[in-house]
């Protein structure tokens, strides 16, 4: 159910909206979604959120924890995917923008303990966007590898800056930043856990954090889906496909690129903010350059340029630690040995190369291919039947 609910939310213009020929009537018109993007995306978002919340009741605390971390990654990868797939630029530093968001959110929450954490998350998002503008402004004006190189430089530099001793009092140095008041489940939820009949819904805090993460990811996906069906989304695509033609059409190319980059940095900031809210603490080694590269790998695995692909990528990344540990156990490799500890990086790196060379669409392309194929066969048969009935 969860999968279906979000699947259509992922593809901004899925095949379902492209009614083929006027004469034939596809079978899926019966589930036609609202035409207005906002209504459509909200509906799908609410459905997806509901389904995932139901899911959190059926899995244990470990899985809920992984689910909440996955949700953070979904928010980050969705922004990265829009940047790469829709606007045609690539960032190798979104892990660093996550750090910006996480530290901003954490400092804000520690500084204003009475405010709701949503405000701190907003601050983290805005901080991510601002850093994105500063880093992106010089590099996005140029075509070529400047943005990728600059973001990689930022990702390499950032952990050392965060750990810089002069700022330990603010950023916590090597030992990291801890939330003094991590959000706790509200009292009414805790009360209900004692209520007879509702005790099955007993709230573990991991479940509550999973809700926070999922809500953040769903809001991000809804906003990005709306952005993509707006003027900005069309401008992103125009600039990606032909920057000269876009410029001639009156699109401000440099500004469009910066907007796309700042959007992805804002998503990363929000993902980082959610991360610290859920985990309660971060330190400089949370956001090494390898995280940024892993995010790119997860995006490619999920499917570049589709929001649903970001969901697959985020889930794979969030659960990958467990899966890799299982895999090394199955292969008889000690997970803490040199081989076991680097298995994840080796697999993600190899997948990155193989997928880009052989199947650049990732998981989402595979799914939508088989979906379209099934739908196409069905439609063709209906159309044939209809034609025959019309003839007789």
């Amino acid at each position: 159910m969860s999968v279906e609910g979000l699947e259509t939310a992922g593809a901004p213009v899925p095949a379902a909206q492209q009614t083929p020929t006027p004469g034939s009537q596809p079978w899926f018109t019966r589930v036609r979604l609202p035409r207005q993007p906002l209504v459509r995306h909200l509906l799908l978002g609410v459905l997806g959120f509901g389904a995932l919340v139901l899911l959190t009741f059926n899995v244990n605390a470990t899985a809920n924890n992984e689910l909440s971390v996955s949700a953070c990654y979904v928010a980050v990868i969705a922004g990265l995917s829009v940047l790469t797939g829709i606007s045609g630029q690539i960032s190798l530093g979104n892990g660093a923008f996550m750090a910006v968001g996480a530290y901003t959110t954490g400092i804000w929450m520690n500084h204003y303990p009475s405010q709701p954490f949503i405000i701190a998350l907003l601050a983290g998002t805005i901080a991510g966007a601002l850093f994105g503008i500063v880093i992106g402004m010089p590099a996005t004006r140029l075509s070529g590898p400047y943005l990728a190189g600059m973001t990689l430089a930022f990702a390499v530099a950032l952990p050392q800056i965060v750990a810089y001793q002069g700022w330990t009092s603010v950023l916590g140095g090597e030992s990291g930043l801890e939330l003094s008041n991590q959000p706790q489940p509200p009292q009414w939820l805790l009360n209900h856990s004692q209520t007879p009949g509702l005790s099955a819904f007993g709230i573990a805090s991991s479940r509550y954090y999973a809700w926070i993460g999922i809500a953040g990811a769903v809001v991000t996906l809804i906003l990005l889906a709306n952005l993509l069906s707006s003027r900005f989304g069309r401008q992103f695509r125009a600039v990606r496909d032909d920057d000269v033609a876009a410029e001639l059409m009156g699109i401000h190319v440099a500004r469009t690129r910066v907007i796309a980059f700042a959007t992805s940095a804002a998503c990363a900031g929000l993902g980082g903010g959610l991360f610290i809210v859920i985990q309660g603490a971060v330190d400089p080694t949370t956001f090494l350059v390898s995280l940024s590269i892993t995010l790119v790998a997860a995006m490619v695995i999920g499917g570049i340029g589709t929001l649903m692909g970001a969901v697959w990528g985020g889930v794979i990344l969030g659960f990958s630690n467990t899966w890799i540990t299982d895999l090394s156990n199955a292969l008889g490799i000690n997970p803490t040995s040199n081989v076991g500890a680097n298995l994840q990086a080796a697999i993600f790196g190899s997948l990155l190369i193989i997928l880009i060379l052989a199947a650049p669409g990732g998981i989402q392309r595979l799914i939508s291919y088989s979906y379209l194929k099934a739908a196409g066969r069905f439609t063709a048969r209906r159309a044939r039947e209809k034609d025959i009935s019309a003839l007789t």
Partner: protein
Amino acid sequence: MSFLSSQFMSATFDGIANGMIYALIALALVLVWQATHVLNFAQGAMAMFSTFIAFTFLEHGVGYWPALLIAIIFGFLVGGAAERLLIRPTRGKPEINPVVVMVGFLTVIEAIAAMIWGPNSRTYPSPFSQIGFTVGGTTINFSPYDLYTVITVGLIAVGIYALFRYTNLGLKMRASAFAPEVARLLGVRVSRMLTFGWMIAGAIGAVAGVLYAAHNNAGVYPTNLDLVFVFGFIAAAIGGLESPSGAIIGGLIIGLVGDYVSSYYSSGLAPIAVVVVLIIVLMIRPQGIFARPAARRV
């Protein structure tokens, strides 16, 4: 305490030696960029792996110079293999595909190196003393090893210049980079020239890796060239990505800026200071300091 051993001059001497290593990486990046218009994100990792290969031979009793030669040959082969197997299939595809492939290659190389040799730093022997020269009774922060570094980089730079300027092969390579179609019509094996550009870059990277491993006892470990790669990229970008001489001067600038910031503030701030230098340069002169502006820039 004379001027030569002052903090400023110490940082300057160290900055020159560091800058020369960044310049080598930058030079390798420029060669690859000229050949295929790809920024080789795995340049640092390839150099690291070549250094580890040399290190393994050293452990088995091979001398410093033969090991260096082995690293160079290995870098040469890996560079060619990377172009043939990873870059050629991405030709004609979106611009980000080679970037993603090379980032994947970087991840794989670092993971494999960590699997084989572990994450810890290994000491790499130095063929010359690391203790500074004594000038007029004071010890300066410039050792015979630093001199060896500067001379090696200088020789490579002269060699590259001579290759492009005076040899038939260099002329063919320039033609392939400048006008592939015309060069092909005139009988140049363009694809072979591109591979050769990558091979030279791989070999230069290997030299940089070996030089860096013993420099100030940096050692060799799977991620030891990440930062050097970043500095090298920024040096190349400051020089305009197209110009080998710009790469050398860019490396020197980055080395000095990095060492001044490390010396007067903290080594943790050096990377961001260098990023700021790049931001300023790109804002003022987007095409780099030493490159001619391109005709098409949107």
